[in-house]
């Protein structure tokens, strides 16, 4: 029997202030004059969501911000109720939503353990036994009797995590909390989670933007988009689907945000495009394929020794590489008019993902920048998943290398 069953659940929020006197008066007037007043606008946080989870399953909820993941977790933990549909939860739920939210600043660490454990429904006589292990795990034994308002933020988060994971619940709901504390404590949290999952066979629902974490911890993934479940299956497959979608989102976003644009009178960038060696325009390039970058421009004045430089950066402006035309284009003077320059990349060495281009043009006997722009053009590098780069943790550059076993 499933431990969680969600059937056709929808959740609506009304946007804006619920009711003000003004609105009520307008409504009343409208009633007399026959004019309709626009009701509050409605936002659908969840739209006909259905799935079920078996005991012991570890499920990752993924999706971009505002996809409805947190709303769903709130419904599952009973904090709020769905507008329509039915939710069946068979077991005790321990929410780890934003750990530390329940700590009272005036109470000591020890007192807070009692308070929070009671809130999570632990009988008082069981709490006594929990106190020391919790203090120990959170590494705050010397500060057990200090009010938590004097704790560092790391101490608070550690205490919150330690309390929430010590509760003997059937279902653990984890919302973006493994990124707490310093690296050493994160490691500890991770071990604790693995222990809960593998040894204690808890059902765990994990919401995280760290997809690698989802891939690592979860067996199953559910992908949300605009309040709907768009994919449900093995974590690997779902994470891949999510990467493709978020790449697309970055790509679409990037095309209208040109950063740091600087251009001097007389130089006009007509077009800046990518194409394959046959000249067909493209924005999707396979790993290790050749690529042409074409620059068409119009100069209204003669250009003395023009130089072009292109660069590749990530969507968060980490400069990966630059290459300029020094020694390759040598023109003493370029007459006014429309011209075109091309930069051929023989082998694109980037890991799959979305990248951006920047361009700089300089000219003059004393070199002077006459054009500079970043984020001018986005392109998609596609390729084998084994090259997939997760949030930069694998680096961005592919090595032209091979492994061999020697003996």
């Amino acid at each position, binding site marked *: 029997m499933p431990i969680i069953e969600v059937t056709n659940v929808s959740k609506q*929020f009304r946007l804006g202030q*619920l*009711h003000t006197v003004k609105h009520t008066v307008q409504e009343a007037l409208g009633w007399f004059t026959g004019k309709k007043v626009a009701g509050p606008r409605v936002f659908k946080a969840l739209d006909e969501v259905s799935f079920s989870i078996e005991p012991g399953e570890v499920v990752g909820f993924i999706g971009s911000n505002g996809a409805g993941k947190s709303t769903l977790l*709130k419904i599952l*933990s*009973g*904090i*709020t*109720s769905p507008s329509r549909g039915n939710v069946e939860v068979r077991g005790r*739920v321990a*929410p780890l*939503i*934003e750990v530390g*939210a*329940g700590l*009272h600043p*005036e*109470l000591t660490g020890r*007192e807070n353990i*009692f*308070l929070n454990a*009671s*809130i*999570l*429904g632990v*009988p*008082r006589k069981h709490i006594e036994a929990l106190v020391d292990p919790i203090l120990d795990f959170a590494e705050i034994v010397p500060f057990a009797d200090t*009010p938590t308002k004097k704790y560092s933020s790391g101490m608070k988060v550690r205490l919150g995590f330690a309390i929430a994971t010590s509760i003997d619940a059937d279902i653990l709901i984890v919302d973006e909390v493994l990124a707490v504390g310093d690296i050493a404590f994160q490691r500890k949290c991770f071990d604790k989670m693995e222990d809960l999952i593998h040894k204690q066979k808890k059902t765990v629902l994990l919401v995280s933007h760290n997809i690698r974490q989802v891939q690592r911890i979860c067996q199953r993934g559910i992908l949300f988009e605009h309040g709907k479940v768009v994919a449900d299956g093995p974590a690997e497959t779902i994470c891949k689907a999510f990467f493709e979608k978020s790449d697309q989102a970055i790509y679409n976003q990037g095309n209208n945000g040109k950063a740091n644009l600087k251009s001097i009178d007389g130089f006009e960038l007509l077009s800046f495009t990518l194409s394959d060696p046959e000249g067909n325009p493209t924005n999707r390039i396979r790993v290790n394929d050749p690529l042409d970058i074409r620059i068409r421009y119009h100069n209204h004045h003669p250009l003395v020794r023009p130089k072009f430089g292109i660069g590749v950066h990530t969507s968060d402006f980490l400069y990966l590489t630059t290459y300029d035309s020094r020694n390759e284009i040598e023109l003493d003077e370029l007459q006014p008019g429309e011209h075109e320059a091309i930069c051929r990349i023989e082998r694109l060495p980037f890991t799959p993902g979305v990248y951006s281009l920047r361009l700089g043009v300089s000219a003059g006997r004393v070199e002077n920048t006459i054009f500079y722009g970043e984020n001018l053009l986005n392109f998609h590098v596609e390729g084998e998943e084994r090259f997939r780069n997760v949030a930069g943790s694998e680096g961005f550059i592919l090595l032209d290398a091979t492994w061999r076993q020697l003996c």
Partner: protein
Amino acid sequence: MSLVRSVLEIWKFRELVWTLAWKDIVVRYKQAYMGAAWTILKPVMLMLVFTLMRSFIGIDSGGIPYPVLTFTALIPWVFFQEGVALGVTSVVLNAVLVKKIYFPREVFPLTAVLTKVVEFCVDLFVLAALMAWYGMLPSLQVLWLPALLAYLILTTLAVNLAGAALNVYYRDVSQLLPVAISLVMYASPIIYPLSLVQQTLLVRMAAGTASKALFFLYTMNPLVGIINAFQNILLRDQPPDFAIMWPGALLVFAVLPLSYALFKRMETSFADVI
């Protein structure tokens, strides 16, 4: 039926109520130099003011020292007034918890009232000291006290539950209610004894034929019966006067389930609105 189930659910969460009440009390006085002494300040101050006032206007206190009489009235009154003020804001004040975790939300207004029980007990000690000063001794009628306190708690909850729920949606409630409640003070026998009202309306028939109806209306205020009963059992060696208490009790027991039902109805969307 579902109300019965809800009440049973609260029983399951009784430990949480105790813990939250303990937390509220600890937190209230932790960073205060005078600590729990603040508890008695309010009724004692009011008593002193009323006693001073009485020296100008002359109120017949029926053979009981006026400070004792008015302080006895102030004990349930301050409980009610502060219980309501705290209870109505209780859900909103705990917004952090409401948004993060589920348990029956009536835990908050309930806790608010229970924390006031502690202060109620402290006030009783002050009264005992005051009575000792005047050489008065309570009689066995004092055994009524727990039952009266329970009734007082229910009365406070009848206002609290609906008030707390409405306050989540309309913060106006927490502005309005304390003002309204402090007006009720004048409609309760605190500054003056009930006998004065009885004298005016029932004996002298000051409002003519409407006098009886007016007196009935007056006793609809449950605090009238409660305060009078407190004075009866503690000072006058008499049992509570049920003839005066029943209209108020009727009101309380009619409103309380409605108030609770309203709370449970609104509870489901607290987390969305708060």
